Every structure is written in structure tokens, then in C-alpha cells.
């Protein structure tokens, strides 16, 4: 890991010095123990801040889109001949590159506007799982020793196997190595366990309708509609989200539970063929809503109907933006 950090910093510094990128998005050590937080680097000396470890959670493709669209917006006020192009560098794991591919396929920015520093990924630690493993005690210090995490809490010291604390989407990840990259740092990471990908979903599908509906309403009751999931999601980039629209107002602003359900349902439907299962939405959710269960179900359906996994290759267009006469249609007759 030390080695990867070193190479990453060198590479980042080189890219910034050679002016191949204007800004580099990466992770730096967070303010709390055992955390990492996204950071934006424009000065080559600051490249020393960069880290790459099991606490880097957020999908950085979101920020690539934000920076590019902000820059484009600002360039509208500049004379056409004075307009500048901005190149964004990004430290990307498998799911981040999937999101970037999706952005490229959806014509959000050009391939020349982004420089991808690929890093191998062995999964990230889910903060909620970690917290549960230490019985919710306040974590004061922590360090990684091989496959173990040594966590010092207010009560005592605990050793945790990293695999127990990994996020659900990382455990069954199929694309933990970057699919698309300009520079690759480190060796390819060993595969995770993609065969188990849909085990949880199949179990859920086999439940009777009433139980599935009960699970949905139970999860949605937790939601406080802070929209953190939307803000963190790299596929949610509409300039005006439907929840903020007032003509017509699709979703009421009150605390009506059906409005919350409508918001979540429509966000889920907007993810059809676009969710890369990076787990950013679940990781930022302050109420611990199990969003992944529903997203993964949609992912499974899309794979079964269109044999497509969002952002898995540049050639494979998103299923809902292409037409194929051989697309399955038996659901029309036998829903």
C-alpha cells in the first residue's frame, strides 16, 4: 500500500507539473480516524497529500462531472476566442471508471477532458459496518495491520478483520480494477466474489409481494429526504432534479410518507441501466436506508433483459438509449 501511495503521488505531481491536468481529484486523509476524504489538488506540491487505502469511499466521477460542467458554465461568459479547456485528473478505481464511461457514453464530457489515474481496489470499509463491529463505540484511533484493523475506541482496543467491515457492494464486486485508464498505478487487484452478486436479491425476489412491500415501506420510512444519495450519486447529474421542479410539482415538500416513496421510486427508475453499484448512496445515507437492495434488483433485471452492465465497456451502449430489434419483449405478454 505504501508503494501505491508513493507512485500515486509521483504520478499526480508529474501530471500537474507537465500541465496535463488543471486539477486533480483524489483522496486525502480524513479528519476522523480511519477515514479518507475527497480532495482537489491544483498545486504540484500538494500531491503529497494524496492517499489510496481502504477508507477511500466516495465515487469521484461525481466531482469530475461537477467540475467540467461548472467550468463550461463559466466559459459561457467568455469570448469564444478566449475560451479555455480544462482537463480534470481523477484517481479512479473500477466503479469510478465505470461511471466515467457512462458519462462519456451519455456525452457529458469528452475523453480529452479527463485523465484517469487507475488504481486497483480491494474494497472499501463501510463506516456503518465498522461502527456496528465496535458496538457503536466512538473510534478514537485506528491503523491497518495487514488484513486487520486495529481500532482503539473509548472503551478499549479491538482487532477487526478487514473483510468483515467491507461494504456489501465491494464483497461481490465484478469490476474492482479500472476498465479505462490513462495511467495505471500498481498491479491488478485479485478478483472479489462476483458469483455471489445476486444471491441476496434472489432471496428477496422469492419473498411474497406483501413482505417485499413491507420491506420497501419500512426502509422508506427511515428516509428523511436529505437528498444525500442524489448528491453523492455520479449518475444523478440533472441540472434541475425532479424533486426541485415546481411546474409541475412532482413531489410534495411535506413529510408525507408517500412523497418520500415517490422520490425514491423515481430515483431508482432513473438508475435503470445506469447504476454502477459504487455504493456511494448507501455510504452517505445518514439513516442507513438499504438503497442497494432495490438498485441491485434493477441491475439484475437490466442484465437479464439486455445483458448489459452499466459502464462495463465503451462499446456497449446503455440499454435505454439504444434500440435492438432482438430486445426481449416477453414481459409485455407475461408481466
Amino acid at each position, binding site marked *: 500500500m505504501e508503494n501505491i501511495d508513493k507512485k500515486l503521488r509521483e504520478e499526480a505531481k508529474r501530471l500537474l507539473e507537465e500541465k496535463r491536468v488543471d486539477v486533480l481529484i483524489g483522496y486525502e486523509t480524513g479528519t476522523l480516524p480511519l477515514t479518507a476524504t475527497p480532495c482537489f489538488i491544483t498545486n504540484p506540491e500538494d500531491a503529497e497529500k494524496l492517499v489510496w487505502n481502504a477508507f477511500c469511499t466516495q465515487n469521484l466521477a461525481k466531482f469530475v462531472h461537477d467540475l467540467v460542467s461548472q467550468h463550461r458554465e463559466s466559459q459561457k461568459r467568455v469570448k469564444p476566442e478566449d475560451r479555455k479547456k480544462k482537463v480534470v485528473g481523477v484517481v479512479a478505481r473500477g466503479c469510478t471508471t465505470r461511471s466515467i464511461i457512462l458519462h462519456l457514453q451519455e456525452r457529458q464530457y469528452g475523453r480529452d477532458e479527463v485523465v484517469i489515474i487507475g488504481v486497483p481496489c480491494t474494497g472499501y470499509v463501510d463506516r456503518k459496518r465498522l461502527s456496528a463491529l465496535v458496538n457503536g463505540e466512538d473510534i478514537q484511533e485506528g491503523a491497518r495491520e495487514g488484513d486487520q484493523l486495529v481500532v482503539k475506541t473509548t472503551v478499549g482496543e479491538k482487532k477487526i478483520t478487514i473483510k468483515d467491515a467491507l461494504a456489501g457492494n465491494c464483497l461481490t464486486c465484478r469490476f474492482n480494477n479500472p476498465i479505462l485508464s490513462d495511467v495505471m498505478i500498481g498491479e491488478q487487484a485479485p478478483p472479489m466474489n462476483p458469483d455471489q452478486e445476486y444471491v441476496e436479491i434472489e432471496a428477496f425476489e422469492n419473498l411474497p409481494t406483501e413482505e417485499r412491500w413491507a420491506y420497501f415501506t419500512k426502509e422508506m420510512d427511515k428516509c428523511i429526504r436529505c437528498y444525500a444519495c442524489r448528491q453523492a450519486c455520479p449518475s444523478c447529474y440533472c441540472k434541475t432534479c425532479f424533486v426541485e421542479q415546481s411546474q409541475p410539482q*412532482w413531489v410534495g415538500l411535506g413529510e408525507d410518507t408517500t412523497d418520500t416513496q*415517490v422520490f425514491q421510486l423515481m430515483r431508482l427508475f432513473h438508475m435503470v441501466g445506469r447504476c454502477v453499484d459504487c455504493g456511494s448512496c448507501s455510504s452517505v445515507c445518514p439513516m442507513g436506508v438499504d438503497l442497494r437492495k432495490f438498485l441491485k434488483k434493477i441491475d439484475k433485471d437490466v442484465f437479464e433483459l439486455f445483458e448489459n452492465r452499466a459502464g462495463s465497456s465503451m462499446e456497449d451502449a446503455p440499454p435505454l438509449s439504444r434500440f435492438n430489434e432482438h430486445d426481449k419483449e416477453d414481459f409485455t405478454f407475461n408481466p
Partner: protein
Amino acid sequence: MAENLANKEWVPKIVAIVCNWCTYAGADLAGISRIQYPPNVRIIRVPCTGRINPFYIVKALQTGADGVLVSG
């Protein structure tokens, strides 16, 4: 009102969002031919089924419809 509802057998409220050029014309033809369709179906005519936003369906279900029929 509540008493009336309690005594009656439950019938689902169905919203039918139909295309002006085919299904609506079909419903119209049924009317001309004096064939009755059940009163628990509420027809909404749209210029084309392509006009339908998925929100129409979700909103119909949210505001009390038991089923939504999209045809056209």
C-alpha cells in the same frame, strides 16, 4: 358515504391513460356501438403514449388509483 363504501363490494379504481389515435378511438367506437365499459375506469386521453411521463403513473398510484392501464 363511509357506510355506503362499507356495504359495497370493493372495486378497484383504474386510471386508463390512452392514446388519442387508437385506444381512445376504440373506446369511442365502443360508445357509439352502445357497449358499456365499467364505471371504475377513468380514461385520460393523451395525444400519444409517448406523451406519458413515468411520473403520471406513479402519481396516479400515489393519489389513490389501484391500477394504471397504459394503452396505445
